[in-house]
């Protein structure tokens, strides 16, 4: 998809505005719940960028994983933690954090500006089928490793949260 013309540019700036403003909201919000909701809007904005780059599959995966799983998990944590939605107070680390982020942004902008990006006019977005084949042929080992890691994390989490009562119940049966 060509990225020239009024439409894509307008979409890009609109998405940038939404993403940046909500990302700012994540930092500025004193209420933890509001911060997470801003985070969700940020994730959806990033998904919009993926669609603009004709990577629909990644855009939808972004929404499924980051909004549907990660953000909901954070919401759960807020829900189940006493007084976690309380207003966060001022911190002495405000100024150093601002400095650090300005430095990081400077480095990133410098790198992006100085990289010799390869440009192409004929671009065919890979289909889901191509993605699937690549994952299960070329990249099968990293794919499998990630699966094993996730399974281990899953089992570990279940073992960690087992309460003594449940152990007793299992012993009874």
């Amino acid at each position: 998809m060509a990225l020239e013309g009024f439409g894509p540019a307008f979409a890009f700036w609109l998405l940038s505005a939404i993403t940046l403003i909500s990302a700012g909201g994540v930092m500025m919000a004193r209420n933890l719940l509001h911060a997470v909701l801003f985070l969700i809007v940020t994730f959806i904005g990033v998904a919009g960028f993926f669609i603009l780059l004709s990577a629909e599959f990644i855009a939808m995966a972004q929404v499924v994983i980051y909004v549907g799983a990660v953000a909901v998990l954070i919401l759960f944590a807020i829900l189940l933690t006493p007084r976690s939605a309380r207003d966060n107070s001022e911190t002495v680390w405000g100024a150093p954090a601002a400095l650090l982020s300005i430095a990081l942004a400077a480095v990133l902008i410098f790198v992006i500006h100085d990289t010799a990006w390869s440009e192409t006019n004929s671009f065919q977005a890979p289909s889901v089928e191509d993605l699937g084949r690549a994952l299960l042929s070329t990249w099968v080992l990293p794919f499998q490793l990630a699966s094993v890691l996730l399974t281990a994390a899953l089992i570990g989490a279940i073992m960690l949260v087992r309460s003594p009562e449940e152990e007793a119940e299992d012993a009874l049966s």
Partner: protein
Amino acid sequence: MSEVLNPFGSEIFGIWNWLDAIIRVVIMVTVMTVVVMYLIYGERKIVARFQQRLGPTRTGPAGLLQSFADALKLVGKEDLRPKRADRWVFEFAPFATFVPVFITLSILPFAQDWGVRNLPLGLFFMISALGLEIVGVMMAGLGSGNKFALLGAVRAAAQMISYEIPLVLSLLAVVMIAGTLDLNQMALQQDRYPYVILQPLAFLIFFTAMLSELHRAPFDIPVAESEIVGGYFVEYSGIRWSMFMLSEYAAMWGFSIFGAVVFLGGWQFPMGEDWGWGWQLALTMGKSLAFIFVMLWVRATVPRLRIDQLMSFCWKVLLPMSLVQILANGFILVYGGPYWLLTLTSSLGAAVLVAIIMRQAFRRSSTKTLVGAYRTQLQVPAP
């Protein structure tokens, strides 16, 4: 699939494409509102019939205008906000619940190439949009400043996250056979037989998980009136409450059409392509209404599950069964087995699933766990 219908194509930013999209969305909203009103009327009538009552009879002929009267009343009602509520979270929650439901409706094919838009990744889009609905529910629960709403939101979120997995896996089983994520394409392939014949187990799992995602009985514990007053929307009134209702029923309708397209052949089976769009539209609507009727039937018949039964049913029964289905499909498709083998294995799986449910339903109270042991001590001997 015509080129204009591809929203990710180059036409996305053209003015005509925008006009076309706006007109389609307006039609969709109108149709959806009317359908939802009559779904509510239909639900009241059908459930009343099951319970040997009459249902609404007074407003209009046979009570047909009841939903309109209710809607008017709700619009006129005072829009209350609790003092302890988190203002913006509380006010945006109905929208955050409604928007995902609406964008899922906008990708469904009602007839061949009929719909707001047809996406090449329609099925995946549907799944990702459904994941967003949880956010609205949790916003309502957390923002209301009410313990019952909070409990309802926790229940809803736990249930929706859990049942999303068997739902997606059962759809994946069908996608393996169809070889596409395009809903229109998927319907087109079912001209001789619908996929429910090849995948009865996946269909059963899909239907169960769908009931749970929609908070319909017997999985309606997030909105259980007799336990937690009303669930996550207990503090809402007037127009905001009606938005929750609207999204609930619109989701019911959208899910039914989705299930009809994926499993029952959508607009295609039987004779959809030969007899034209009128028949196709009738097929889609008829199949989705059949889906909804079965949901109401289940609601009127089956008692509500307990939360631990709900969770163990999802994680210990539905999830392994759907994984087995995918594994069997994989073996058969890779080694080029005939299609009747798919039917056979999946039917066997479906029979096992039904047997498990039956066994659980007719089982006497167990004494294996601590709760069970406690209960048997209290048991009164039969007179």
